[in-house]
């Protein structure tokens, strides 16, 4: 006999399922609602409408702002080389915009209000047009206000002219995101009032006592005093957490169970997009190894792993090949372990994998403060590195050298003289170091394989093999207590000069993270080569996580003239000021500007960097990993 309670539950459950299905585009529906994998439909013209509309998530009603009435928005899929027209109509009472994340569109089609175009006014239709010659998994989202948090995002696939160099039988898109029933403006204002409002993972008195009994009272006290002296929290992992977020996969909370089907023996391509406002996820499918075949849209030399951390706005394409008729959980766990979204991959529609328990909350170390090379540097990456003999060898010693270099450096002129010090800068990393071979906060001690940036190798040789002509150093700066975020201590609201690149030049941008948080940094309009020891096959990305206390370099060929947004992709960090504009100045205008820039630059353009001739080993910059471009120049790897 049905009890009244279970009857209600069933009815509600059915309602939720129906409601969810009706409000979702085909690609984001569950298997039992007919999604058996993505159709390869392509088009050349798309009409998108921005509205407010009701959604039902985790059994609760909310109001979203999004595209074509669904959360996430429709899949925009077209073919490389086609002329594309996209009409975007704004039905909101405020301005909106769509930015095509990772697409190399002309800058005035990039969709950033105030930088690339004026924005789309209420009632207006804006037409985006372009023709692209790259392919892969991307996404699109609002670049206006805090709309992204409200559901204004969707996936985008560009099908390649010639087939991808890997085979698969079925494909799905997994859009990971974070949803709150609180208004994003309220979230931001709470962070400004009390920046740890959402952190329920703080160290408590019982934690301290447990430490004391483990390590002795002296050691536990030392540690507490060390963090206390800095006025920082070793549990400052995420600003906005599961305390307000419901984590979603394809618009489904764990309870809504997004599920996909497979036949044993099939190869399935998962296109994983982190469309969150604030959440870095750890993604894994327990029991199923993943072959990573693309990052940020571009193909990689396949590398097999069991788990990876995906920054906001990054994408990874993986291929999984379940041999048995098991039910697999696809788990996107927030970096601070305050919540997760779990979807199901199963042989039959409607099945639900059991969600694994959340793992213990990680605790930050001295390395995350940029204060020590002896933190918990994970040297294991060298074992995982495929075919990269030159960077694997002697890699430990390089890391040490770099630490010492920086130590010496900071003794000269004090650390980071180019930063504008003030109330907005609470800390400057004294000894930043490369952390490319670490998989990310909380993943170093897993019993299975974890992916790190040092493992990534581009499938194709990098298109520009020149060494950078100059280096720009940029600090990622913050004061968590005041919730201020900036580059070089200057908020976007205070910026008077953009970062300037000149058409045709090869620039190295070196970022030093002075904050306690990982920042997914996104440069619009250009792929950059991540200097990770990959020789001529460095991974090319549009977004890169810079870990706490890390010093990381990217090489950029400035061949895409225009004004481009450059920012931390954590929405509230950007909103607080962690943004800049990169102006790529056309060759015609360059000489004059260039002259000017050398006189009065204030953007951490180091000036001292440009060697007249490329020199041997650009690891003179002291990146932990030998970046041996100089030595392998001209050599095919």
């Amino acid at each position, binding site marked *: 006999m049905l009890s009244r309670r279970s009857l209600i539950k069933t009815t509600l459950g059915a309602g939720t399922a129906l409601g969810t299905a009706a409000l979702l585009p085909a690609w984001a529906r569950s298997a039992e609602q007919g999604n058996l994998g993505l159709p390869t439909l392509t088009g050349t013209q798309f009409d998108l409408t921005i509205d407010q509309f009701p959604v039902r998530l985790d059994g609760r009603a909310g109001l979203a702002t999004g595209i074509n009435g669904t959360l996430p928005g429709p899949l925009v899929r077209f073919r490389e080389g086609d002329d594309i027209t996209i009409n975007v109509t704004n039905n909101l009472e405020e301005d909106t915009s769509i930015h095509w994340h990772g697409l190399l569109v002309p800058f005035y089609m990039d969709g950033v209000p105030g930088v690339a175009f004026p924005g789309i006014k209420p009632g207006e239709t804006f037409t985006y047009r372009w023709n692209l010659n790259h392919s892969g998994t991307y996404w699109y989202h609002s670049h206006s206000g805090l709309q992204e948090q409200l559901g204004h995002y969707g996936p985008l696939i560009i099908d390649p002219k010639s087939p991808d160099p890997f085979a698969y039988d079925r494909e799905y898109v997994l859009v990971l995101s974070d949803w709150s029933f609180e208004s994003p403006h309220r979230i931001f204002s709470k962070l400004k009032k009390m920046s740890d409002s959402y952190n329920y993972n703080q160290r408590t008195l*019982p934690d301290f006592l447990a430490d004391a009994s483990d390590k002795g009272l002296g050691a536990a006290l030392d540690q507490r005093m060390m963090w206390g002296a800095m006025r920082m929290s070793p549990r400052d992992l995420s600003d906005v957490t599961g305390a307000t977020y419901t984590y979603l996969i394809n618009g489904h909370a764990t309870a809504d169970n997004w599920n996909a089907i497979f036949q044993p023996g099939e190869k399935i391509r998962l296109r994983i997009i982190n469309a969150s406002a604030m959440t870095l996820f750890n993604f894994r499918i327990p029991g199923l190894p993943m072959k990573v075949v693309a990052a940020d849209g571009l193909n990689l030399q396949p590398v097999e792993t069991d788990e990876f951390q995906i920054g906001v706005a990054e994408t990874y394409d993986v291929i999984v090949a379940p041999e048995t008729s098991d039910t697999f959980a696809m788990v996107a766990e927030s970096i601070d372990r305050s919540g997760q979204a779990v979807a199901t991959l199963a042989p039959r529609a409607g099945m639900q994998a059991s969600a694994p328990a959340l793992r213990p909350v990680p605790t930050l170390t001295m390395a995350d403060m940029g204060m020590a090379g002896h933190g918990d540097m994970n040297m294991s990456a060298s074992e995982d590195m495929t075919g990269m003999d030159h960077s694997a060898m002697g890699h430990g010693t390089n890391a040490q050298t770099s630490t010492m270099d920086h130590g010496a450096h900071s003794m000269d002129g004090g650390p980071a003289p180019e930063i504008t010090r003030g109330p907005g800068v609470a800390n400057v990393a004294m000894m930043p170091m490369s952390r490319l071979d670490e998989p990310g906060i909380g993943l170093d001690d897993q019993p299975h394989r974890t992916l790190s940036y040092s493992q990534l190798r581009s499938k194709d040789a990098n298109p520009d093999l020149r060494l950078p002509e100059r280096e720009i150093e940029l600090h990622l700066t913050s004061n968590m207590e*005041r919730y201020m975020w900036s580059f070089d201590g200057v908020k976007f609201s205070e910026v*008077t000069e953009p970062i300037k690149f000149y058409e045709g030049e090869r620039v190295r941008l070196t970022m030093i993270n002075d904050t306690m948080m990982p920042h997914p940094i996104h440069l619009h309009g250009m792929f950059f080569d991540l200097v990770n020891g990959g020789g001529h096959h460095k991974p090319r990305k549009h977004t890169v996580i810079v870990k706490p206390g890390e010093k990381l370099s990217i090489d950029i060929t400035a061949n895409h003239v225009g004004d481009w947004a450059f920012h931390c992709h954590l929405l509230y960090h950007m909103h607080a000021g962690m943004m800049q504009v990169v102006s790529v100045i056309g060759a015609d205008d360059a000489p004059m500007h260039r002259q000017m820039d050398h006189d009065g630059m204030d953007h951490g353009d180091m000036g001292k960097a440009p060697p007249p001739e490329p020199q041997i080993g650009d690891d003179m910059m002291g990146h932990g990993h030998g970046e041996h471009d100089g030595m392998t120049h001209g050599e095919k790897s």
Partner: protein
Amino acid sequence: MRKLSKTLLLAMAATLAITPAFAEEDDGTSPPWSQADEYYGREAMSKARADVQHEAGGQTNWFVMADRFETQIFDDEEALVFDAQGWYGGDINKLWVKAEAEYSFEDEDLEDAEIQALWSRAIAPYFDVQAGLRYDLEPKGRTHAVLGVQGLAPYWFEVDAAAFVSTEGDVTARLEAEYELLLTQRLILQPRLEASLSAQDIPDLQLGSGLTSVDAGLRLRYEIVREFAPYIGVEWQSAIGDTADFIEASGGEKDQTALLVGVRTWF
């Protein structure tokens, strides 16, 4: 002394009168970037440019918090204490308002009440300097110039130190420090210490020179949500030195201990 304090008062009032610079830089100079102007026109772009910059770091915010809103239960009397503050402004400059009041249920009378309006400027990552005026509603109608420092000291001590110069020429000071000990993620024990000082005897107010009083409290709150936390606690209030003598002479107690029941809330 009186002259000095008047000068001080004037200086502080003048500082207060300077409108904090919340405004954006004007559009008279050439814009920092402008390549899209060619496609969409200068006018449309400059508006959008000002907006996007303002939206990323230039906003103003506000905050209101009743840190202590409590009944103090003594052996023979009960009092209602209200201690709140709030601010409005940007990251650097804020208008900061503080209010404190104590109401006695026995006497059905407001015993102490004051309000401060301060300009608060962030001068370091963890500290603001605050200057402005304090007006005493009870007792009497003294007005004070205020100069203080508020912020977060190393080891997570919230501190607020201020000096007051009254229109009568009296110089006094107050020092508050709070610490938060997390027993769990929501159950928080807060020791709080408040010390008052006076540079001179002020017989009207029963204050002797030197350290005048020390209040030491312990509050245990439960954050149902971060913004709303009921608490219980205990506070030991002690008058010191000549101040104690003044109080005892008038038949009061120099030491008393109160049980506290209250709520801490913020918006």
